[in-house]
Every structure is written in structure tokens, then in C-alpha cells.
């Protein structure tokens, strides 16, 4: 099933399926690229940022960024 990264539940895992073109370069340096396995580590309340785990390291993303990333989940 596909969903936006911003819609993932806490501790849910998935594979990055699609990143909006204009965002691709921005997140690539943080280790988020298509095909990468990703896990939702923390969700902050009130439209706060999300923290995701990629390759054993954590990255925080603004909700607006997380909405533009599509993840395939189990």
C-alpha cells in the first residue's frame, strides 16, 4: 500500500517509492532516495516535524516535505 510519508504511523516501516522532483535533490543529501528503507521514528504533534530513520541514522523533516514523499508500506 502506498501512502505519504507524513501519514505513516509511529514505528511503521516502508520503502521510499516516489519523491517529488523539486524535492529530490534536497533530501538526497540527507540519505533519503527512492528505494531506501525508511522507518517513522517520531511524529510531533500540531503539524510538527517527523523524524525518520534511514540507514540507522535519524533525519527530521518538516511536515510539508514529508507530504511530498510517497512510501510503499507493508
Amino acid at each position, binding site marked *: 500500500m502506498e501512502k505519504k510519508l507524513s501519514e505513516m504511523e509511529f514505528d511503521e516501516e516502508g520503502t521510499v517509492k516516489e519523491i517529488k522532483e523539486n524535492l529530490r535533490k534536497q533530501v*538526497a*543529501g540527507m540519505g533519503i532516495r527512492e528505494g531506501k528503507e525508511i522507518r517513522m521514528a517520531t511524529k510531533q504533534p500540531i503539524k510538527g516535524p517527523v523524524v525518520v530513520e534511514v*540507514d540507522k*541514522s535519524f533525519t527530521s523533516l518538516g511536515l510539508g516535505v514529508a507530504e511530498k514523499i510517497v512510501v510503499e508500506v507493508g
Partner: protein
Amino acid sequence: MKILLMGHPNVGKSVFFNRLTGAKVMESNYPGTTVDFTKGWMRLEGEDVELIDVPGAFSLEPKDRAEEVAVKMLEENRDSVVVCVLDASKVERGLYLALEIIERGYPVVVALNMWDVAEDKNIKIEVEKLERILGVPVVPTTAISGEGFKELVSKIKEAAPVKIEKIIESASGVRVATSAGEGGGGESAAVSG
């Protein structure tokens, strides 16, 4: 010759800087921005060499002012050797930046910093293999204790520019046609993964 310290935010560049310069630092304000960089001098084989602590950047596609400064400093110091400081426990992420810098034709030395942290996390990195693939010196370091610094400093003079096509070749085994048309526009490949 100048030496630029580059890397992601929070990988220990400033600890590096202080160790290499002996904290003989002066602060400098880059015109037009509020982002500071630090400049200092270090001894390299009997010569005093300028060392610049560049603001942390994730990539060379600037998204904020700090990264803009980082890119600008790289561009304004074409004759410098870049010591690319990576967090050894997040090595894949850092290699992206390292490759971008190598691609722009700079001589690079890769420092796998926080080696102790990586060891604690049971992360094993094949340094020689990485060195072979990248074609640039790779040195494990622990800036906080000073481990690996002697070796790092000794490798700075060895750094030489490497063609990105060469790295793709040694990483994937696929021969890459260069923009000059070498190989008659045959197969081309990109770094993936």
C-alpha cells in the same frame, strides 16, 4: 594552498579545526550573510597553511544561507584541498557530499570521523576498499581524542582530483562514457542506491 574542512552539520568539523590549528583561530564574518566561518593556520610539512572551517552542508545544492556560504567558499577557493569530514556512523549520507565535491574536481581527503562511535554501534567500514573505489585517501579519525590525525595530515599532500566516471566504474564495474564522447556514446551509468 588552502585546506577547506567540509562536511555535514554536526560531524565534528570544528573539533577537527581546533585540533589541527591548535585553536590558533581568528573569527571572520562572511560579507552579506550571518553565517560565520572560522579561519586558522596549521603547520604542514614545515609550511603554514590556511585552514578554513566551512559551515556544515548536506549537499552542494544550497537550500539555506549556511549552505550558500559553503558552496561559495568552495567556488572561491579553487586551489584548495578539501578535507571532507564524514560521520563514520552515517557514512552513506556523507559520501553523497564527498562525491559532489570530488565531481567538481577538488582534491579530497575523506576523514571518517567519530570512528569510536561507529565502533560502538558495531558498524564496520572497509577503509581500504572505500579508498580503492573512491581513489582518494580515506582515514578513520576520532577528533575528540586525536586518533588518526597524524595519518590524516600526512595524506593531505597526497590528495589529487579524481574523475567521477572512474569512481562509478570502480563502484559498479560499468564503463562510463564521458561527456567528451569517449567510447562513442556507449553505455552510461549513474551512481545509485
